[in-house]
Structure formats: C-alpha cells, structure tokens
C-alpha cells in the first residue's frame, strides 16, 4: 500500500479595504439516515409519497403515543461513526428540544444534546494532489426530522405534510477547521462520498437528504493559530450561522458574501452580532433569520419516554467488521495495485459504483488500460447521453472483453473504439462481434509484409523523401493501414516499414 502524505492547504485570504482577513468555518451536516422506517416509528421514509401518507400515530403526536427506537438507525449511526474513524459512545441518551411549529407535532424534537452516540472523528478532505485538510469531527448525534409546512397553496391557510416528520437524521458537527469556501464544499463532498460508500445516507442534496448549516467568522492572519494553540474562541471573530444549505455552489457563494459582509462591518468600526442567517441565492446575500436575543430557548431535557441507549462493544465490533473499504483506502489501493495516477484513482473512487465497475473491468488484466477506458471512453460516452454508471449499456464484462482483445493484439486501439461503439449501441459479446464482422487485426507478418512491399514499390518518390526525413515514414504506415482496412497490427506495420525503408 502506498502511504500518502498531504500538505495542509493555505487558508483563504480576503483583502478588505484596510486589512487582510482569513476565514474560519465550521459546519453542521444534517444527513438523513438511509433506513426504510423512521427513527421512532415504523412509518415509511419513502420520498415522494402522497402528503401525510407516511405517518404513524406517534409521528402525528397523538395523545399517549410513545417513541420506540429503530435499532437499524442506531446501527447506521454507529457505522457512520466508524467510517469517520470516530469514537463510538456505548452510552448515549435522547433529549427533547422544545419549540412550537406546526410541522413539529410533538412540540419537541427528540435529539441527543448531552450524550451523542458518536464522539470525535476526522475527515481527510483532499483539495488537489498532495494537498488536504484534516477536518476534525466533534460529534455525531441522531435526531428526528421535522415535517414540511407549505405556505403557497392557499392565500389564507398553510398546509402541513408529516411524511418527513420523525425521519432519522444524523447531525455531523465539524470543528472550525475549514478555512476556505472551496474546503467547505470539498468537506461536504467528501462526507457525502463516505456516507454513500457506507450506505448510511444517499447524499441526495436536492431532496434535502443532506443539508448543511455553515458557521462563518473572519479573523486577522495569525489569530487562528493562537486559537488552535489555546482553544480559546476569543481569538476568533464572532460567528454567524447560515442555515439549511443544500448545494455545494450555494455553500461557497454564501460563505464569500457572508465573509465580505462581516469584513465590511468590522472595518467600518461595527460589531458582528452572533445570529442565524439565511442565504438568498437570487440576490446572493445573507439576511438575518433571528438574532441571539430572539433565539429560541429550547429547554432541552432528557426524554423521559426513552431509556438511555446502551450498546455493547461486541455489537460495534460486528458492525466494524462489515465496514466496506472506504474512499481513501480504495484510492490508495488503486494507485498501488493498478499503478493508477492520483487523478485517475480519485476519479474512479468518487462514487463507489464507479470504483466497483472499474475493478470488474480491471479483471481483464490491465488496470491502467481499464482506467483509461472507463474514464475516457465509458464516462465520456455516458456523459454524452446524460447517463450514469447505473444505466450504462455496456457492462464491466463487455468492457473487460474489449480490453482483453486489445491486450491479445486481436484488435487495435482504433478498432477497439469502433467496437466499443457497437457494443454500446447494439450490445453483444465483443469477441463474437470481432469475429463475425472480421474486425480482427492482421498480425500475420507475411500478409503485412506483402502490403508494405507493394506500397513501397508503387511510391518511389515517397521512399526517397522518407529516407531523407524518417519522420515521413508515417505516411507508409498510414497507407498500409488503409490497404488492410485498419486491421493490420500497427506495431508490426511500423516495424516492417522501418525495416523495408532501411531507416
């Protein structure tokens, strides 16, 4: 295995009117736990069902109804913790976060404030080759999602859809280790990648299955280092929290406008108020949602309907034993075992489905060639058709077959591309297609030699030129290929042409 080492990236420096400023960012990612049923009820979590059809009595907070923990959701949270190399807390507990809102039927959200299920972990966020930020995870806790309030269906009434109410979320809280908008987006991307590998969250940001709250503050160069040394937040600026972001692009844009807003205020002699803000992508600005004074008093207290959650180390070990290979390890292995470049390995491991596809193709015997074909030909062709690997018309066996034919010398790279297109559009076994359509490359030296001789004999003027300038020998190669319908083995042709021209 390769042992990769990384340099830390430079923090983003923003030039204000007077001073230079650095960014300090911490994130809270709300990731919907992949599970058929909700965190405390048996109701379905299926997206897109009729409003209020995925609702158990407890989700609607009917009188006397009680939550019962869904063990699978716990397992998923533990799996996530293990995937982030985090400490698993064998003792955790649920608390109630109290506030009134129509899409929160209980009048409280069951969450884990005091004793989260997962403690400290880390995520390695690679930004470019050899450069990565190690973002520390402070904690992961489980909580219930709220429902959906719909305000635009009627001029006088609001509607509530409880399908989402009680769906299990993990809130993954980072330390303020992120130093630029790019890092923030890359952090979300890396987290999403890991969760998808673990199959603990589908990472679908469009459906809101992964959302981010972004805490942003600015400080002068040097201050962050003092904070890092002492842990004293006093060295940093006052932070504002931008809520509920579900696009990488918006996250980056929001961080920049928020940072610029803060810098302008500070340089103007003002003070930043700690508050919750919302990003408006249309106007590209953040605006205040509620100030610290208006902040809810959530009156957290231990949920008396649920006993503390005690899990056993043995159970955690069992989950750990079934953990899949994660992106970093897979990438390193691809580089080591297949000799892939950092870039190719990153591309292939971005999505676990791609990596799996590639590994199947690589069974044909040439990892590097397989990587080229998967990345350049297959991905390129899929992209053209707006398809993903899941609906690729070419399966790994077929692509592996094409590569095997190349390796065997049965077809040239050029023919292989034609073959790929045939397999892509028509399907079929590559070897059979090559056989049936006479695409096999001619490696019979005698036949090629005859063709070479014929062309040399017919073009004495070209022979003279080529002998004077060997670079022109390529013309003969081209003619031979043409004469053989592209089926001649180019390596053999090259060799023979050079020999016959006495170059």
């Amino acid at each position, binding site marked *: 295995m390769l042992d990769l080492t990384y340099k830390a990236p430079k923090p983003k420096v923003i030039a204000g009117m007077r001073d230079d400023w650095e960014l300090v960012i911490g994130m809270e990612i709300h990731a919907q736990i992949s599970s058929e049923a909700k965190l405390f009820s048996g109701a379905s979590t299926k997206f897109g069902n009729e409003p209020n059809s995925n609702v158990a009595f407890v989700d609607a907070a009917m009188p006397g109804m009680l*939550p019962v923990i869904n063990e699978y959701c716990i397992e998923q949270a533990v799996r996530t913790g293990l995937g982030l190399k985090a400490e698993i807390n064998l003792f955790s507990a649920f608390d109630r976060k109290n506030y009134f809102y*129509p899409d929160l039927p209980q*009048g409280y959200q069951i969450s884990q404030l005091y004793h989260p299920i997962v403690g400290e972990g880390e995520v390695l966020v690679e930004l470019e080759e050899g450069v990565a930020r190690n973002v520390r995870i402070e904690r992961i806790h489980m909580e219930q999602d709220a429902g959906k309030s719909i305000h635009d269906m009627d001029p006088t009434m609001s509607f509530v859809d409880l399908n989402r109410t009680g769906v299990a979320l993990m809130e993954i809280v980072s330390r303020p280790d992120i130093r630029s908008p790019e890092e923030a987006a890359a952090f979300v991307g890396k987290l999403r990648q890991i969760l998808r590998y673990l199959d603990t969250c589908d990472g679908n940001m469009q459906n809101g299955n992964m959302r981010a709250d972004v805490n942003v503050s600015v400080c002068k160069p040097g201050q962050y280092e003092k904070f890092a040394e002492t842990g004293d937040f006093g060295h940093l600026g006052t932070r504002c929290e931008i809520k509920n972001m579900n696009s990488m692009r918006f996250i980056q844009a929001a961080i920049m406008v928020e940072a610029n807003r803060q810098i302008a205020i500070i340089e103007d002699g003002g003070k930043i108020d700690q508050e919750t803000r919302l990003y408006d992508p249309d106007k590209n600005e953040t605006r205040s949602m509620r100030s610290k004074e208006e902040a809810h008093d959530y009156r957290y207290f231990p949920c*008396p309907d649920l006993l503390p959650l005690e899990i056993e180390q043995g159970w955690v070990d069992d989950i750990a034993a079934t953990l899949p290979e994660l992106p970093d390890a897979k990438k390193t292995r691809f580089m080591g075992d297949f000799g892939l470049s950092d870039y190719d390995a990153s591309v292939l491991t971005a999505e676990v489905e791609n990596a799996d596809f590639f590994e199947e193709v690589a069974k044909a015997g040439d990892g590097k060639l397989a990587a080229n074909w998967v990345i350049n030909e297959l991905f390129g062709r899929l992209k053209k058709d707006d398809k993903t690997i899941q609906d690729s018309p070419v399966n790994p066996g077929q692509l592996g077959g094409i590569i095997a034919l190349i390796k065997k010398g049965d077809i040239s790279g050029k023919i292989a591309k034609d073959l790929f297109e045939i397999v892509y559009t028509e399907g079929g076994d590559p070897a059979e297609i090559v056989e049936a359509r006479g695409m096999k490359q001619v490696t019979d030296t005698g036949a090629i030699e005859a063709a070479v001789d014929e062309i040399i004999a017919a073009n004495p003027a070209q022979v003279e030129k080529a002998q004077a300038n060997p670079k022109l020998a390529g013309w003969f190669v081209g003619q031979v290929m043409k004469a053989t319908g592209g089926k001649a083995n180019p390596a053999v042709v090259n060799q023979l042409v050079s020999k016959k021209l006495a170059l």
Partner: protein
Amino acid sequence: MTELNKLTIADARDGMRKGDFTSSEITEACLTEIDGAGALNAFVHGTADIAREQATAADARIKAGDAPDMCGIPLGIKDLFCTKGVPSQAASRILEGFKPEYESTITSQLFDAGSVMLGKLNMDEFAMGSSNETSVYGDVVNPWRREGSDAKITPGGSSGGSASAVAADLCLAATGTDTGGSIRQPAAFTGITGIKPTYGRCSRWGVVAFASSLDQAGPMTKTVRDSAIMLQAMSGHDAKDSTSADLAVPDFEAALTGDIRGKKIGIPKEYHMDGMPAEIEALWANGREMLKDAGAEIVDISLPHTKYALPAYYVIAPAEASSNLARYDGVRYGHRATLGAGDAIDDMYEKTRAEGFGAEVQRRVMVGTYVLSAGFYDAYYNRARRVRTLIKQDFENVFNAGVDAILTPATPSSAFGLGEMKNADPVQMYLNDVFTVTVNMAGLPGVAVPAGLDSQGLPLGLQLIGRPWEEGDLLNHAYVLEKAAGFVSKPGKWW
C-alpha cells in the same frame, strides 16, 4: 339480583363460573346505578352499547369454560386512557371531540381478558389535581359525607371519578393512574383500595401522558384481592413502551397468603409531619399494631430526604408536563380557537391553549417551562433530579437493611369539602401528595388500604410501600392490614 353492582371482582368471578349470575346481569345492574348517580358526576361518557356487547361475549366465554379472571367484570375507565372510537379527553377542553383510532395497551389487555367497559370516568384535567376540581366536566362528588352534613366532599384526585364510582358501587372496579398519588389519595378518601405498581409494570402506551417518568396506571378496587386480580391483567411488558419492564408477571392473587410472620415493617420517622391531625397519627399507630399482631416486626427507619420530595416532584412533574402537553396546539386534533382575520400561527397557539387548558394545567405548564429555561435548568430541574436519586437511595438503603414494607398514612387528612381549597395557595393542595410522591419519585409500588373512619365519619387510609417488582408481597401485607382493620363501612346512599 338488584345488588350485583356491589359485588367484588373475586365474588363476581366465582359467581359467574358457578352460574349464579351472568356478566350481562351485573352489567345491567351497574348501568342502572350509573344512570341514577348523576349527582356524583363520576361517569362522563357512558358506553352502554359497548358494555352490553362485551358482557354478552364474556358470558359466552365463561360458559365455554376458558375465561380469564377478569372476564365479564364491568369496569369504569379513567378518561386518561385512550379508548378506540370512544371520547378520550383527559377531562380537558383541549381534547374536545377527540376519539382515538387506537386502544391503550392496558384497556386492550383488560378487554382481551373479557372485561366490560361501562364508560369513561371523570378526573382532574390531565391528571393534575388532588380534588377532582380541575375537570372540564366539573367536580366529582365523593359518595361519602360528613356525618350530619350534606356538604359535598371531594373524592380526591386525580382519579376522583374512579374512586367515587367504585366506592358508590357504580362498577366493580376502575382503572386509575398515579403520578404523585392520584390512585392512592382518592382511594383513601373514598374507602377503597388502590395500588400504584412499580414504574414499568404497566404499559403507558395509549395513556395520555402527564409526567412520563412518574406516570403509572393501576387498579382501584373494593378489596385487596380485587387489586391483585385486576393488576395481574393490567401488567406486562409492552414493546411499544420503551420504559415498560421486560419481566414476567407473577401470580399476585396467589401471593395473598395472609401470612406476614417475620416480615419487617419500617416506620419512617420523617412521615410524622408537623400539624398532622391526631386522628391520622392514631390510625398509623393502629396500623403498626395490626401488623405487629399478625407477626411482623416493626422497626423505626429513616428516609432522610423525604422533605425534599414534594418540592422536587413539583419541579420534575411540571417540567415533563410542559413538554408532554406541547402537542395540544390545535393543529391536528381537539380544540382550536376561532381565529380573527390576521391572526398568525402564534395567535392560534396562544388562543387555543388559553381556551383549552384550565387554570391548574396552565400553572403547571408555566412552572415546567420556567424550570427548564436556560439559566434555571441546573438550579431547578437538575437539582430536582439529584434529589430524586437521593430519595431512591433512601428507599434502597432501607430495603437493603431487610425491611419488607414501609407503613405510612396515605394522606395527611381525610377528604375535604369541595370548594374549601378554592382560594388556598396551590401549595396547600400539593401537600395532599406529601406521603405519596416519594413512591413515584423512587418508582416503587405503593398501595392505599382503607383502615378506619375519622370522627366525622369519613374514611381514612394507610399506605404500604414495597420493594420494586414485589407487588405480590406488598399486596399480601395490604391483605393482612385489610383483614385486621375490618373496614366494611359503605357510604349511605344519598344520590
């Protein structure tokens, strides 16, 4: 046949099996009594049709010969229990018109055992009260009266409807719930038996929550034996309630041997309250003698944190209640205030809850909200939780030292007149729970047994507190006390 409503569960069970009478006959007798007892205001919603249907089915089952003990027994059900298709309002306006689509685990178990539901019983709103004066249905009246007076007396609370109904023989027994004494205090005020089992013994699923960590359901019956029989049917693990204990339920009736020789009875010195009526002291002393005469050893014990129990209870219970009652917001069910033009969601919450909740419930929601607020949480809620731990330890220490049961008065006085406390400081009312809340705080089983009448002719009860999960042993002590006290008085019928 006219007196079948006066039967105990045990006698009804045995008589039905012998063919002396049928469940339908007992049920009709109860329905007739209920019809004539409007003045008690115990039943707030009759379910005669359901009762008759259940009784017919029960009779068939008994005839077939495989009926459980509770089969055919007509019961009253406290309004706190959700009963499918039947109004279940926790005696609150905020649940106006609410008919659950589900049946509470406990009533399911009782009905599966063949019990008959006569109707829903009045109670203090959301089980908050000690006099049954906070109900949206109005006060419940105790069938007992002071000698020579026709002043209306409280049956206690919050299970006041259950207590009155059982004491007045409107039903054979009733379900109750007990968060700080709501089974035991009304049982004592009406001369009946009531047991609050160990926390976790009976499922809370489908019982409207007041304070989740304290709420327990239990039976309210005419005799100790009946409590044993009915508790048996109410108990058991329920996967739908995470706080329900996954323990086997022993045969409680079989535990009633009447033999407590060699048992150690603790008398906690902290339960001698200043200003406690001499009659209560005398009753307590009498109880000690009775248990001693039955061969038990009487020991003085100390439960040093007792005096902190009531204040801590009145932090924890309202805190949980303030959160548990947040769901009553007018959005999905129950009462919703009529809104004015321009009223927003906050107006809807405020108006709905102001109209829907009575004064005592509002007080407790406000207290609970306050004690959980940022800046007060540690001083109140966390401190109360620590007190609770200490109270639990007090009991553990005593039980570890070999004490089998603890004897205390059930209440600091006999039943008071309805309206007498109307202008009193609410804390005066809370003092009713002084002997009972410790048991809820520690999650222990406690039983109230009628033990005598006071000088005005009102019943008085004694309380026995047992080891966790030892309801059988506890009931056996109560059984001995019941026999020795020989309490047979019944309220004279005036209603």
